[in-house]
């Protein structure tokens, strides 16, 4: 009887490893940016042609940076949650959401960017993003336009949507890869924001 115990124990150890390993999501790569300063940038804003946005503008506030695009299917799933959040808690919780429109034109596989001038690309980005927000609701305090995805690289974006929680000192405290869910928002992000507000 005893000789079967060792293989049996090994079997259960193996099952344990598989149970944990197979439930991990390989797409969730821990970001090295958590705990570090949010990379600085200067990008044009969606609403006002002349204005730019920099994370420096948000110093002293806890805020969310939400990376999105109209061609991104998961963003579509996530968007109503953000709209509802701003509508319900906009006045109660001081948590501005900044939208980062990521490669709006060149990310869309159906458009050949080599035929479009940078000026036209920016213009088309504005048009598409504004139309989409007008249709689906605008949860953002403001939107910045990352036309070529260069800022996305600095933030380690590798799939939209992604959301960063940034504290008053401009340090990234949390990164959500993939769409936000009510669970993540209520159980992770909002408690964290409350903590950071102190």
């Amino acid at each position, binding site marked *: 009887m005893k000789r079967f115990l060792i293989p049996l124990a090994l079997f259960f150890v193996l099952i344990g490893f598989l149970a944990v390993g197979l439930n991990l999501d390989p797409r969730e790569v821990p970001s*090295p940016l958590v705990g570090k300063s949010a990379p600085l940038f200067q990008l044009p804003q969606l609403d006002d042609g002349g204005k730019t946005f920099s994370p420096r503008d948000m110093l002293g506030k806890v805020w969310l940076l939400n990376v999105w695009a109209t061609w991104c299917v998961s963003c579509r799933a996530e968007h109503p949650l953000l709209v509802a959040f701003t509508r319900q808690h906009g006045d109660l919780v001081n948590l501005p959401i900044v939208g980062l429109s990521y490669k709006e034109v060149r*990310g869309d596989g159906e458009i050949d960017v080599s035929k479009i001038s940078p000026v036209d690309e920016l213009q088309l980005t504005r048009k598409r993003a504004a139309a989409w927000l007008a249709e689906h609701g605008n949860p953002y305090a403001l939107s910045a336009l990352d036309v070529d*995805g260069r800022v996305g*690289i600095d933030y*380690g974006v*590798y*799939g939209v949507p992604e959301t960063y929680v940034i504290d008053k000192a401009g340090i990234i405290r949390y990164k959500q890869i993939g769409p936000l869910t009510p669970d993540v928002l209520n159980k992770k992000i909002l408690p964290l924001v409350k903590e950071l507000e102190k």
Partner: protein
Amino acid sequence: MSQRNLGAFGAFEKIGVARLPILLLLSCILLTGLAQAREAAPLAEDVVVEKRMVAISEELRCLVCQNESLAGSHAELAQDLRREIRTLIKQDKTDAEIMDFMVSRYGDFVRYRPPMKASTYLLWFGPFLLLIGALIVLVAYLRRRSGSTEVAAEATLSAEERRQAEALLKQGDSDNK
């Protein structure tokens, strides 16, 4: 090249059947040359930069298709990152600096060769530990087995059986003579 196919190339018939294969071959070479030239145009003009970029990006994982290297992936992010590496090379950054650039944004996961540090010791030395463990188990098992067979042999042969065995052996010897 069969004779029947030549009929289709009516215009070529005047040139003569013997020269046709050469002509076709030449035009093929010419056409592929043109096609390649067209594909190569958007790539970096500098061969040295391109070589270094490929060497570096082969060490990096594409985060969109995680089982592909950055060099081999057609994902859009991979193209962006290759362009980024080219820019960094042109800014005279060293390979180590470019690696740091990628790791600081995407983490150690982006490297196919994980760095040696406290959190990766188990990854690097784990297999050797398993090997040593397996060897110890193997040696212990072999020792126990050889020990137990000796004991078993001695225990099972009684004096009577031993005599019988010797008798049989002797008989075998005399048979062979």
